[in-house]
């Protein structure tokens, strides 16, 4: 970096390998770690790659904690499925990420029945979460349906009326 560059230069200049402000360099690093951007120059690529993998593993753990049935339903491929889906996709918080992953898998016909049950219950109980925010509970009676799974919510209580069809 250029040691004479003042810290208060706004980070609105074009981004690229010539960036010198701390803000721009931090942004380039985060983009490389979570959004699939190329590694900034000068960093040890293996150490950045290990960090990227560690971040994905940590996210997988957080989503599994918030979406236990989804993760259990994908066992023993949970980590592999999550990492494949999340690589290059910036973190949005476990509630939202599990929701998005379940939707994605549903669209691809790969959502396990336990995941369908869990997504149906979440749809019945909560609004689709904003990134980085906890989901807001639904106040009015509502229902969720994912594949064969049907869940209803009344007065804050969610009930799975019908589970998704299990594989024979």
């Amino acid at each position, binding site marked *: *970096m250029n*040691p004479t*560059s003042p*810290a208060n230069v706004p*980070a609105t200049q074009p981004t690229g390998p010539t960036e010198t*402000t*701390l*803000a*721009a*360099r*931090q*942004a*380039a*690093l*985060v*983009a490389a*770690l*979570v*959004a699939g951007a190329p590694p900034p*120059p*000068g*960093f*040890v690529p293996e*150490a*950045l790659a*290990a*960090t990227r*993998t*560690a*971040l994905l593993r*940590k*996210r997988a*753990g957080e989503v599994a*904690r918030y979406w236990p049935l989804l993760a259990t339903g994908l066992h023993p491929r949970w980590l592999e499925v999550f990492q494949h889906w999340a690589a290059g996709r*910036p*973190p*949005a*918080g476990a509630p939202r990420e599990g929701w998005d992953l379940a939707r994605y898998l549903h669209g691809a016909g790969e959502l396990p029945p336990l995941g369908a049950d869990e997504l149906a219950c979440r749809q019945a109980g909560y609004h689709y979460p904003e990134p*980085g925010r906890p989901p807001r509970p639904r106040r009015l009676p509502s229902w969720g349906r994912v594949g064969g799974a049907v869940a209803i919510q009344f007065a804050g209580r969610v009930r799975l009326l019908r589970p998704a069809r299990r594989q024979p």
Partner: protein
Amino acid sequence: MTGPVGVGIGWRPEIAGFVAGLPGLPFVEVIAESVPAAGPLPAELTALRERGVAVVPHGVRLSLGSAEPVDSARVAHLVAVAELTDAALVSEHIAFVRAGGLEAGHLLPLPRSREAVTAVCANVARAQAELPVPIALEPIAALFDWPDDELDEAAFLTEILDRTGAHLLLDIANVYANARNRGADPLDLLDRLPLERVAYAHVAGGAEQDGYYHDTHTSPVSRPVLDLVGELCARHRPPALLLERDGNYPPAAALRAELDALAAVGGLPVIT
């Protein structure tokens, strides 16, 4: 020094029952972002407070190391949690967690440059202006370094502590991880840090994966980490030690044994 004394544990909802059953527990840490600013505290934490157990709110998302000014709403949240828990001390990290509108989802290291020192000190000062209690700053574990470090870790940290007047939250597992991943001697750092500034120390277990030691908080505290706690105490005994565990929770007896081991190595009262 204001702050905790003795052996504590990171309070997590999953082990709230275990923590409630520790008869001699003097303090816990709670992840500040997990507590709603408007309250209420989780009932188990309220019960601990009523027992006289001190609570240290531990922030993980302030991003004091961001080049941009720290988010005042996040500072206000930490202030609110400090008041809710009647805390004597709060803690956060020397790290950044977001930039350019993206969340990293984890604590990332700063370049050890004078520019970064200035940025983090400005943010610490902004937080200190609002906080009702002192702050302790925790150096993190990182798998990589920036290519243009001007200072070494000890000089970088000492400069930040000197300029902010903050306490040090020394994570011994981080010291171990950083040294191991760089082929360095962790004692070199211990010998050069201002250990009299340590408000308390973190201790946790990690795991080797893909050729790196990761500070996961999901494994038992290893012998080398415990030995390093001993080395810390031999140089300057910190007032308090805190066990961090964030998943893969063992049976209660194993967790109690880890707390007993910390008490033994730190010469602190047994809390189990």
